[in-house]
């Protein structure tokens, strides 16, 4: 199956104040196919967020190729990477990161504003209805429960018909009773829409629910992706 996300020989490092270079990522290869669901495990500080930033084009890799739906991000300038992120990827954050001054419906519409298509109010309402928020369209985030906020975040991630959703610790900020709801919501929604799902988590009870699990582990000070059958090459 055609991979939606492909990484090969990706390296990322940061310059430290003393002039030293801190190597953070060293990914030989990784691929996520269309409709595939994958959990990416790793300890805090293992480089999970950096990896998501590189995949989404927020950060540029120092070396290697990051290909999203056959588009090589490493060849694009920032504005074009932004466009690819808006059109091809949906992001769900640990803190939900809803825009506080906007209603649930507007939060979804804002995401549509930056995509290639025109903002579609009807579709935004359908997405919110699909996550059970048909009666909370005009509520601002402060008027929504934690679970409802996370649902808005999922609906927003799906706004531009993405090929993949990247979820960064989506259950880290919510209580145990809601964690399962969020995972079910993400998996079910992505399955219905045929969207690939990459969930970053440090919780084994979350990762275990995914058909594919990979781990970020430190190797020669840089994080590498390790699969069930060994290091990804």
């Amino acid at each position, binding site marked *: 199956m055609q991979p939606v996300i492909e990484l090969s020989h990706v390296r990322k490092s940061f310059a430290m104040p003393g002039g030293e270079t801190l190597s953070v990522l060293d990914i030989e290869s990784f691929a996520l196919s269309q409709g595939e669901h994958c959990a990416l495990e790793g300890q805090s500080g293992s480089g999970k967020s950096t990896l998501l930033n590189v995949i989404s084009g927020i950060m540029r890799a120092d070396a290697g190729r990051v290909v999203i739906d056959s588009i090589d991000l490493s060849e694009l300038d920032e504005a074009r990477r932004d466009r690819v992120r*808006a059109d091809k990827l949906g992001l769900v*954050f640990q803190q939900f990161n809803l825009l506080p001054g906007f209603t649930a419906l507007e939060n979804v519409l804002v995401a549509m504003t930056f995509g290639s298509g025109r903002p579609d109010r009807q579709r935004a309402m359908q997405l919110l209805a699909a996550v059970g928020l048909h009666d909370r369209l005009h509520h601002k985030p402060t008027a929504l429960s934690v679970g409802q906020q996370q649902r808005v975040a999922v609906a927003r991630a799906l706004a531009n018909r993405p090929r993949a959703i990247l979820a960064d610790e989506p259950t880290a900020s919510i209580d145990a009773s809601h964690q399962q709801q969020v995972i079910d919501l993400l998996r079910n929604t992505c399955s219905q829409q045929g969207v690939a799902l990459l969930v970053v988590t440090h919780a084994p009870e979350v990762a275990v629910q995914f058909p594919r699990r990979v781990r970020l582990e430190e190797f020669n000070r840089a994080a590498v992706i390790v699969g069930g059958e060994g290091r990804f090459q």
Partner: protein
Amino acid sequence: MTLVGIAWRNIRQRALSSGLTALSLALGVALVVATLVTGGIVQKAFESGSGLGYNMIVGAKGSPLQLVLNSVYFISRPIENISWSTYQSFLPAAERADGMDGAFAASTKTAVPICMGDYFRSFRVVGTNAAMFDRLTCGDGKAFKFASGVNFRDADFFGGVLGVTVAAKTGLKVGDPFAPTHGADDGKVHDPFRVIGILARTDTPIDRGVFVNMEGFYLQEGHAKPVSPQLDSPSAGVEREQVAQSPVHQARGQDAQPDPQHSQSAAHGQQPLPFAQREVTAILLETASLPGLPAELTAMGLRTTINEGRDAQAALPIGEIRQLLDLFVRPMELFLLLVTTLVVVVSAMGILVSMVGSSLERSRDVAIMRALGARRSHVLTTVLIEAVLLAAGGGLAGWVLGHLLVGAVGPWITSNAGVSASVFSMSPGPEALLVPFLVLLAIGAAILPAIAAYRTDVAKWLQ
């Protein structure tokens, strides 16, 4: 949702600081609008007096500006009076007792005498003749119109015409009597005149004037020039008869009708004051063109000749008013405009302060939008649009507020300056530039926050 929609949401999200910023802009703009409009009204008030159908004023020697202010605007005091013979020197043979053209008759198209010194409830009383409203105009060549009644007739010695402001303030109607007082409001009360007509609004100082037949004016106590005793002798009666039989009096008497309600001269049984006992405060002149000479040169020549003489001076109202405007009014207006513009600039800086103050909150929102795919240009544009919306909103609110302010003091301006001032009074040129200027200022003020938004580190703010 568009970038404008996002910007508007951002403004609403920070409703208090945005509202205060817009309010300070609105107050600044309201001040500028009020200054501009009031300046325009003041200018109009002065310029309105230069289009009354005459181009020269002849009066006693002294300050030409004082002559103009007193004769045209009914402010300041008369310098002195000039002789009746000076007035007659502008009259053609047909209007003179001796049947000869006056020395300046050829250069004169219309000469209207005015006599001042009396008041009616703080309004200036002007003794004149019917030519004031029959032959002069109320600006731009338009003939005077009467809201009610008609012009007084020269034969009706105790007829009067009121400006619209006077009528409104005093409540006088056509047919009502009114008695001027001598020299001041608390001066001796004269014999009453009767209102023959009330002028329609002219938006000139005429609106604030009480105009009476100068024949009746002359007959009031203290208005006759003291002369040698023989004028009180039997020969004086002979001269009164000459005055009554002079061509001008006969000509003006022809249209006189024995209307007991309007014509009080007959009821008083009074004869006109002898010429020797007459003076005028000023003469309003519409100059003519001498054969072969342009009108301007004729006027300049006449003015020079009069000013070189010993009896009187000639002043050009337009020139004096322009000088007054250039020397005092415009610099004052410019100063006020400068101060109020500074207020607006400081208010525009409020946008910068407001945006910098909310930069932490904004950085997080910007990072979220960037993560959703917004380009740097999107967030920069959104911040600038926010500033433009605040400036345009505050500016337009201020524009309305400024006009409401002028509208609120409009009645006071109208009654005191004789120029209509309302919520719709405009100063079109500068006003049209005000909001665009403010928007440019706002964009300038928002550049720094916009660049900060442009440079927001997404990864840092989303950790």
